[in-house]
């Protein structure tokens, strides 16, 4: 090609440029723009403020080039060359070129300027080929609405792929002789056409990634509305074809149909062949990253600053935690896996690129997902937060174990480290919460006894809290074990420190079951609670009532422990036995204090019998004092409370068993002493059935709870 001529064409004045411009840019909204071009060239600073013009210029450059090539073509009066034939010739020529290059002793094709041997002459087919490819690109990428990639027929695509591939190879081969003057111009032309083709394909690739996906959620509801026919409406053909074609089941990866995927694959292939790997990767990265970002937004996963999270009230934060958890699960179980498949499919021929793209995309999203729990772990500690912290902790743990299979080691390493730091912080927060629970129990020193000796709200609160906590027992075991192992100290180090949720395997030795740190923590809390309740029982002036109080609370604690398998499993039998015997002791103490004196009235016959005869006045006194005592007890203790039905009936039965037979025998022996009628009525106020009935009414007081401790 004639270089002088090239220069002439390229060096054409503005007039010429504007003509080109007008040809290609006949869109109304653009027509006023070319005016800026000359200014643009002169005044570079303007450009900074108006990027549009820059692009415009780029377009013009492209157009200019095409025009110039077109001119070359037009000069030839020969019939249009056949692409297939020309392509064969080009292939041959490429072979010749590369052989010639090898002849120079350089491995493969280089741009070594010192090539000594004259390179093979430039055949006419190079020009013909350039012209054909240029025409092909122009056909697709001209005017205002470029032809969409998916409107191309399979043959079109194939020939385009082949042409670009061949062109890139030709360019590469020719570059070996770039110092040859006669080649330079050809190289320039081919490079220009190739760049134009690549620019077109880059746009198509971007478009395809952005607009050829369906909303995955819509897709579930409506299988027909698929690949939104892109920006222009001519895609009907495709859109209609698809549904019947894949009626049974359309497998969508990240919103792309199989057909879209195969198009993406082809585009990648061709972009790679043209040497535009960097652009291709960046376009893909940005499109997919955007897509995942949108998915995050759909999840109402709000990005909050650490600062904001500290200031949020707990209710709002709780909601955020719930949605974070869901987001995290969905991303780790669905989106990342799909994303991985997508990149593997689209970059099938370039597995290492596919891997690094996926890993980079996923990593960016994961880093964002990990920011939130970090902020949460820093919020002010409070007992009620424990359970949500646990949820987050568990999510992070599951995520941690999934990372390995999701990402390549070099990427997952850092994320694992981050996730484990965050978990560590959450763990610390949770342990602190337990310490604070201990401190609060210790410090709870209300001066007002609970009426009727009922279960103290502190007991209720603590036990319910522990019961709830034990639903997370395995996780809490982990948390405590982890911190214990960080301690590296005198705690039991045989306990596994890794993330295996519960393993009984190491306990099957004949060694007696070792208490885990969390179990120790539980026992600690229970002991503190016990101590506190004992202290509180001293608030009752009435000793039997304080025993009732202890029984009530002790019973409540034991019942909770038994009801909750997890707590029960954590405590060894000795502990429970100890508590049970405590309870029995309270029971005994109560009976002794309350009923022994009464019983004494009935059993101790001393003074009743004078010389074998019943002393009536003494008997009268006995009955009177029994009646008064019994009345008093009943009166006081009916208002006492035992809310546990079983305990209530146990206690009643044991009292009955003690009192009723004694009374019955006392009655049997002495009641006839009184003359029937008024005397009997006066002294024998209770029949043994009455005594029994009254005892059965004990501890029925209406429970009035303190209400301070609530869960």
């Amino acid at each position, binding site marked *: 090609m004639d270089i002088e001529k090239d220069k002439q064409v390229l060096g054409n004045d503005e007039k010429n440029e504007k003509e080109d411009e007008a040809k290609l840019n006949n869109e109304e909204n*653009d027509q006023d723009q070319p005016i800026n071009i000359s200014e643009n060239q002169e005044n570079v600073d303007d450009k900074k403020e108006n990027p549009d013009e820059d692009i415009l210029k*780029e377009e013009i450059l492209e157009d200019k080039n095409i025009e110039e090539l077109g001119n070359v073509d037009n000069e030839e009066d020969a019939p249009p060359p056949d692409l297939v034939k020309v392509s064969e010739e080009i292939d041959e020529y490429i072979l010749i070129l590369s052989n010639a290059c090898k002849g120079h002793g350089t491995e493969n094709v280089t741009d070594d300027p010192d090539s000594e041997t004259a390179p093979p002459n430039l055949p006419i087919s190079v020009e013909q080929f350039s012209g054909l490819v240029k025409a092909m690109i122009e056909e697709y990428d001209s005017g205002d609405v470029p032809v969409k990639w998916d409107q191309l027929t399979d043959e079109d695509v194939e020939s385009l792929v082949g042409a670009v591939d061949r062109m890139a190879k030709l360019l590469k081969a020719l570059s070996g002789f770039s110092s040859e003057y006669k080649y330079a111009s050809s190289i320039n032309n081919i490079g220009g056409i190739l760049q134009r083709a690549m620019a077109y394909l880059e746009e198509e690739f971007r478009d395809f990634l952005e607009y050829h996906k369906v909303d995955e959620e819509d897709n579930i509801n409506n299988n027909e509305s698929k690949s939104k026919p892109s920006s222009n409406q001519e895609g009907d053909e495709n859109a209609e074809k698809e549904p019947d074609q894949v009626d049974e089941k359309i497998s969508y990866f990240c919103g792309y149909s199989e057909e879209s995927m195969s198009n993406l694959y082809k585009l990648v292939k061709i972009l790679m062949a043209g040497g535009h790997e960097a652009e291709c990767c960046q376009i893909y990265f940005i499109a997919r990253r955007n897509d995942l970002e949108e998915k995050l937004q759909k999840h109402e996963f709000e990005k909050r600053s650490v600062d904001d999270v500290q200031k949020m009230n707990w209710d709002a934060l709780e909601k955020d935690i719930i949605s974070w958890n869901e987001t995290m699960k969905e991303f780790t179980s669905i989106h990342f896996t799909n994303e991985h498949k997508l990149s593997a499919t689209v970059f099938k021929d370039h597995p290492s690129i596919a891997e690094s793209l996926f890993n980079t995309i996923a990593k960016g999203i994961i880093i964002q997902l990990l920011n939130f729990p970090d902020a949460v772990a820093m919020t002010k500690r409070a007992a009620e937060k424990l359970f949500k912290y646990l949820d987050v902790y568990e999510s992070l743990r599951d995520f941690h174990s999934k990372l390995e299979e999701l990402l390549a080691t070099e990427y997952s390493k850092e994320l694992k480290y981050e996730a484990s730091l965050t978990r560590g912080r959450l763990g610390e927060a949770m342990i602190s919460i337990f310490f604070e629970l201990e401190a609060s129990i210790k410090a709870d020193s209300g001066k007002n006894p609970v009426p009727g000796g009922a279960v103290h709200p502190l007991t209720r609160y603590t036990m319910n809290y522990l019961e709830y906590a034990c639903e997370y027992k395995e996780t809490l075991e982990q948390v405590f074990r982890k*911190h214990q192992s960080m301690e590296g100290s005198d705690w039991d180090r045989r306990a596994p420190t890794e993330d295996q949720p519960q393993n009984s395997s190491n306990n099957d030795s004949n060694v007696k079951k070792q208490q885990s740190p969390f179990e120790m923590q539980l026992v600690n809390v229970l002991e503190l609670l016990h101590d506190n309740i004992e202290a509180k029982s001293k608030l009752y002036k009435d000793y039997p009532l304080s025993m009732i109080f202890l029984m009530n609370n002790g019973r409540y604690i034991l019942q909770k422990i038994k009801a909750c398998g997890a707590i029960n499993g954590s405590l060894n039998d000795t502990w429970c036995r100890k508590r049970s015997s405590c309870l029995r002791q309270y029971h005994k103490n109560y009976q002794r204090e309350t009923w022994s004196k009464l019983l004494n009235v009935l059993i101790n016959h001393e003074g009743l019998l004078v010389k074998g005869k019943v002393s009536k006045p003494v008997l009268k006194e006995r009955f009177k004092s029994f009646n008064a005592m019994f009345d008093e007890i009943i009166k006081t203790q009916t208002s006492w409370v035992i809310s546990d039905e079983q305990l209530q009936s146990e206690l009643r039965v044991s009292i009955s068993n003690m009192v009723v037979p004694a009374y019955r025998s006392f009655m049997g022996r002495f009641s006839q002493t009184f003359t029937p009628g008024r005397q009997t009525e006066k002294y024998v106020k209770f029949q043994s059935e009455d005594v029994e009935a009254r005892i059965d009414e004990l501890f029925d007081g209406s429970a009035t709870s303190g209400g301070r401790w609530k869960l």
Partner: protein
Amino acid sequence: MPATDNQSSFLNRISIRRNQVSSMEHDQENENIELFSKHVVDYFADLLPSHTSSTTNADPSSTSLESPAPDLHPDLLSICWFQNLLDIFLCCEAEFKAAVVMGRDPLHFGKPPLDRLIPELLDRAVKALDVCNAVSSGLDLTRQWQKLAQIAVSSLEQKPIGEGQVRRARKALNNLLTSMMLDDRDGNYHGKGTDRSWSFGRRGGGGASKNDRTGGSFRPLSCSVAKSWSAAKQVQAMSSNLVAPKAAEQTGLASPVYIMSTVMVFVMWSLVAAIPCQERTGLQTHLNVPRQLEWAKPITVLQEKIGEEWKKKEKRGAAGVLDEIKKMEKLAKSLVEFADSFNFPLEEEKVVEVAEMVAELAEVCQKMEEGLPALQLQVREVFHRIVRSRSEILDVVDQNGKASLPPVLY
């Protein structure tokens, strides 16, 4: 992997706290505090551009913690310089903790003025974390810019430079410049709605769409904070209540707390100035370091220098005062200019000229390639360190709370 002090045991800390010696020897304490402020001067003097000070690093063995070894005084505001800055921050932070926090009698933090200064410090720490996150995503964006620049470099390294190469490079550089410009534009940082409304059409004459779409998507998608978040405001909030202790308070703990706060605010401020961050309007006015204080002198000088750079940046509308970004932007503009006037074949002198620019840009890319991931890790380390220290300080403060108030669970 950054070695943070996470391994220091939590329970251990608590047990230290529980059995802590209530009073430290006073002399020792004052000495530590004095040493801390002296080191701050030394460290920051090292960062000064025409560094001649002989006092620095004179006796590294005198410090309990290893002082950072500056990398032959890199250019002010280069990636390397920032690496040193962050190292220094970590050192100051560790020394501050050793002097002020560790083994501290909780009661000290409960007395005025510390009962006010400590919570303020903690609040600043939280805000600094957000800055770290924003800077991290800014660094991600910078990586994307680097990739665009690399496309231009590899394209223009071809011989001969033809139309195709020039256009390819130009496209990449235009994307780069647009992204830089968009990034700096306020309120246009987030939201796809905004950039979509920018596109007029597709190819044809409306090439803007191409550019814009690309430019738009180069924004730091990973921005870790809310849309309304502003880096400038955050820095302002950190420094607004930062007041030098009164003369009477200068001997106690108020002074080191103030020094540490100033160091923290300064470091965050410089990061925000250098690296693309969400919303940075008026950043310059948001830092006031008292010049009269001895320990603050090097920081004041640095602040002035960075402030000047920032002023230039605000005038030109560039992307940030990071040396490499500045160079990249300048070269990108020159190369676009070159591309605009490109004619094939290139004259010899042009070839040389362009090759020089390309080599320079390649060098910038190389520096970024090496420096950005390391800086990224360091920013993370700073993040983790701040979190850790905050919780250590809170441990002491909480202890105090427990001593004075009966805890309530309900």
